[in-house]
């Protein structure tokens, strides 16, 4: 019998019934009485001065109730950090990208609101614009923001050890430059927000990854006390980083509601959702690595340029995060990192799956692969040689507590048959590739880095858990309920979870940065452990034994080893209440972080950056069609060190989802532009993997049992989404002998490479096609 009753089982998804019956509500499904529908007039220009706005014709349209413009909120700016408040709530004097919000309108129905937009007169004076990283950083380029004349809005310069000396000691040095494109999250749920301002309080419903972050931003910008903003629990139809921030649509819905005293809902179209919430940074990355003959890394230098669009969003994190990931995957004592976050006249880029880490991992891993080839080393060996280990203190001073990186690598190599296949199937245009990565589990958010929870009991022995834990589909709620059930000795059906609501639940950092299991579920664990202590104390008095001798399972507390000596939890509660004793569990989990560590502040990238690291490796097998340029993924083997699998099926689902995302990034996805105008803002044109592209997956869950995690658990799968990208690129290189430096590997790009016209390895290919019939 397992040591646990609930932890480690494939328990049913806590919110499963609501989701399969259509009963679960998402923001667009809400229709409160008296609701108005809002629409937003957006900038048609990538960069322009607003000369004047006239809404009088729109307001005169029957059915239109209110309009709101930026001038009414002049002087108020927002941004993720106090130091990055660079965006007006609604554009005032200038627009900086196509799609920027200019006027909000609310009417009795959506058709009328839409019609009203046509009646708004805005005069613009177009300005010269910059679209790419190079254009933006060119001497004399037009500046988006006065404070940043060179368009570099944030930068990071860090060095650990002595990189120059390191390179001098290297036997071999290799440098590569890689690029990635801007991407869209394409959460299935288009963005929507409902606000209702009533009696001085603002009620908000919107897809989110933290109700608390949303509340804070709204309260700051609108000048309301924190407890006068109530962000309600609502289902979120996928986030992937793109529901982290507060968007202008939120301010606009709030302002329209404040002006009209009615609930106002704004539902964005698919195109608006892609263009005006957030996108993933496009990046150019140069990696220089020096190694000994045996592959031991001695020095590395990373230079990162991130094209971020019109406003700063999470820019400092996008360039700072990858550093934490890079130092925690492959050991390297001398590490230099430079990052530049660049403004352009394109949509705003923020967090998306691994933030900047995904792009950096692709560069990091492909550079290492080529270094191995230069040195005649095996792709797995070089990774194993440099893989970080448990107990290791990284160059920044951050410590790795638990670590299964070596095991994940060994197991994917073994179970995919990597070594028997690599380099042997080129005559079939088939190849294999491998990748591995680390991931942080939460980061410094100051006092908000930890998660709190409460447990109360009901007189039938059931319990209600209050936690701010956020679940955008991952299964975080189920994990919280499983952990509470295990710790309290109750079946899962006896636990109800109240989550993610600013009025009802205590502080939680949100489901950013893969923190939910490690931090939020941990908060629930602490509260349940507190309740358990209280229950055991009372039960011990009743059973006349020591609390330490007790165990709880299935609603019954008994003396270990003598199940006959027992008392039902329900009875313990009755007795306590009858004697006027309260039983309320409360707890907080605060990760042990250096709260001074900063993403970009000079000299502040030292000390513990996260409470735990998770690790993973992926092996991919591909076949390339040399006539069409299509890459087919035949098979994937993925292993992730998740500390402990609280729910193996849920964890596998996370792995598979991350794999699909990564495959998309490696092979298909990319936003296509004509200057500032996006050409593929629909699901049909954007092309992310469908059922047809998803290969068979073999998932391996590695349990390193983290000393701090709830029952040893950590984040469940993000590393896989990173590692699959380089594994795929490396597999294509193995199949056709071409090493690509630019994502995605579209059929056009593959064909160009086969014809010798693509930039690969910093040069153009020559004659790869000729090798078509070469034997291995």
């Amino acid at each position, binding site marked *: 019998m397992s040591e646990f009753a609930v932890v480690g089982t494939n328990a049913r998804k806590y919110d499963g019934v609501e*989701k*399969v019956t259509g009963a679960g509500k998402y923001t667009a499904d809400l229709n409160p009485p008296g609701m108005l529908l809002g629409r937003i007039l957006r900038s048609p220009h990538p960069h322009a001065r607003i000369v004047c706005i006239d809404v009088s014709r729109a307001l005169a349209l029957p059915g239109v109730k209110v309009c709101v413009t930026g001038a009414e909120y002049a002087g108020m700016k927002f941004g993720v950090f106090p130091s990055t408040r660079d965006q007006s709530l609604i554009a005032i004097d200038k627009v900086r990208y196509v799609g920027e919000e200019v006027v909000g309108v609310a009417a009795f129905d959506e058709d009328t609101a839409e019609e009203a937009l046509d009646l708004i007169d805005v005069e613009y004076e177009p300005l010269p614009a910059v679209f790419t990283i190079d254009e933006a950083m060119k001497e004399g380029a037009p500046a988006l923001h006065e404070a940043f004349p060179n368009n570099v809005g944030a930068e990071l310069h860090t060095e650990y050890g002595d990189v120059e000396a390191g390179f001098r000691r290297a036997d071999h040095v290799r440098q590569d430059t890689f690029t990635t494109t801007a991407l869209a999250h394409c959460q299935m749920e288009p963005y929507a927000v409902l606000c209702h301002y009533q009696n001085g309080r603002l009620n908000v419903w919107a897809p989110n990854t933290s109700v608390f972050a949303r509340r804070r931003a709204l309260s700051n910008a609108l000048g309301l006390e924190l407890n006068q903003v109530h962000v309600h629990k609502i289902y979120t*139809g996928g986030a992937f980083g793109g529901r982290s921030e507060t968007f202008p649509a939120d301010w606009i819905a709030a302002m329209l509601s404040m002006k009209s005293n009615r609930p106002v809902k704004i539902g964005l179209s*698919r195109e608006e959702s892609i263009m005006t919430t957030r996108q993933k940074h496009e990046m150019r990355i140069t990696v220089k690595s020096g190694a000994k003959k045996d592959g031991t890394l001695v020095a590395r230098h990373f230079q990162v340029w991130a094209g971020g669009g019109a406003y700063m969003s999470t820019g400092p994190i996008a360039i700072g995060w990858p550093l934490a990931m890079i130092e925690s995957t492959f050991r390297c004592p001398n590490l230099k990192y430079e990052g530049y976050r660049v403004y352009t006249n394109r949509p705003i880029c923020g967090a998306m799956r691994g933030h900047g880490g995904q792009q950096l991992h692709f560069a990091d891993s492909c550079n290492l692969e080529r270094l191995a080839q230069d040195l005649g080393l095996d792709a797995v060996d070089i990774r194993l040689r440099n893989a970080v280990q448990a107990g290791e203190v990284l160059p920044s001073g951050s410590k790795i507590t638990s670590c299964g990186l070596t095991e994940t690598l060994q197991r994917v190599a073994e179970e995919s048959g990597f070594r028997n296949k690599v380099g042997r199937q080129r005559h079939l245009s088939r190849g294999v590739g491998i990748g591995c990565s680390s991931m942080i589990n939460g980061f410094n958010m100051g006092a908000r880095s930890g998660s709190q929870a409460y447990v109360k009991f009901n007189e039938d022995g059931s319990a209600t858990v209050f936690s701010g834990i956020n679940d955008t589909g991952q299964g975080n709620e189920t994990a919280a309920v499983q952990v509470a059930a295990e710790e309290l000795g109750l079946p899962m059906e006896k636990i109800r979870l109240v989550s993610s609501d600013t009025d009802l639940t205590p502080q939680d950092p949100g489901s950013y940065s893969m923190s939910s299991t490690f931090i939020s579920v941990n908060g629930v664990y602490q509260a349940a452990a507190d309740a358990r202590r209280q229950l055991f104390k009372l039960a011990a008095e009743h059973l006349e034994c020591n609390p330490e001798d007790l165990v709880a399972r299935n609603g019954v507390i008994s003396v270990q080893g003598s199940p006959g000596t027992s008392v039902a939890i329900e009875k313990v509660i009755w007795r306590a209440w009858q004697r006027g004793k309260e039983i309320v569990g409360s707890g907080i989990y605060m990760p042990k972080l250096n709260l001074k560590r900063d993403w970009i502040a000079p000299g502040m990238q030292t000390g513990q950056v996260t409470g735990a690291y998770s690790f993973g490796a992926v092996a991919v097998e591909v076949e390339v069609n040399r006539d069409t340029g299509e890459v087919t993924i035949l098979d994937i083997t993925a292993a992730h060190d998740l500390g402990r699998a609280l729910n193996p099926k849920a964890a*596998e689902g996370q792995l*598979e989802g991350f794999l699909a995302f990564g495959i998309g990034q490696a092979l298909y996805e990319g936003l296509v532009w004509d200057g500032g105008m996006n050409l593929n803002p629909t*699901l*049909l044109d954007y092309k992310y*993997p469908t059922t047809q592209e998803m290969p068979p997956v073999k998932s391996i869950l590695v349990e390193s049992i983290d000393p701090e995690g709830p029952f040893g658990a950590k984040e469940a799968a993000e590393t896989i989404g990173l590692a699959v990208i380089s594994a795929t690129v490396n597999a294509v290189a193995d199949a056709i002998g071409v090493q690509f430096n630019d994502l995605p590997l579209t059929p056009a790009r593959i064909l160009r490479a086969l014809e010798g016209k693509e930039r690969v390895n910093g040069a153009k290919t020559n004659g790869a096609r000729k090798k078509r019939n070469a034997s291995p």
Partner: protein
Amino acid sequence: MKTAITLRVNGDAYDVVVPPQRTLLEVLRDKLLLTGSKQGCDKGDCGCCTVLIDGEAVLSCLTLAVEAQERDITTIEGLADGDVLHPLQEAFIRAWATQCGFCTPGMIMSGVALLEKNPTPSLDDVRRALGSNLCRCTGYVKIFDAVILAAQMQRERAAAQP
């Protein structure tokens, strides 16, 4: 100009007055408040709005409400029998085939249409039948598992019936 029509949804008849350009999805969601069918794109790209019309999986965002008169419409809300879930719904929970859940109603409706025609689908049949239903969360693997599991459950339920 508006038209009075009767829609038969999940066995109930609804009289509604709609302009001719209203889609079935808009009427289901905004007029009948059956919000289980989701709008992910409103142009036929995502499959979130899939409902059954006379047993066929149909994109309700590409169907005019007036076209759906006098036909049997089934939405996600009409599948369960009280608290007893349809085998596909039950299988989606057991197999962890739903994450954020936004694609789930459409996926399940496409799955129901498949199993009506083909009670013993192969993995390839499932892939094809769900080919126009997008999911951004799951990577589809668990959804395939769920449909195959549901087929098995449906056979078992049929066998258990006297």
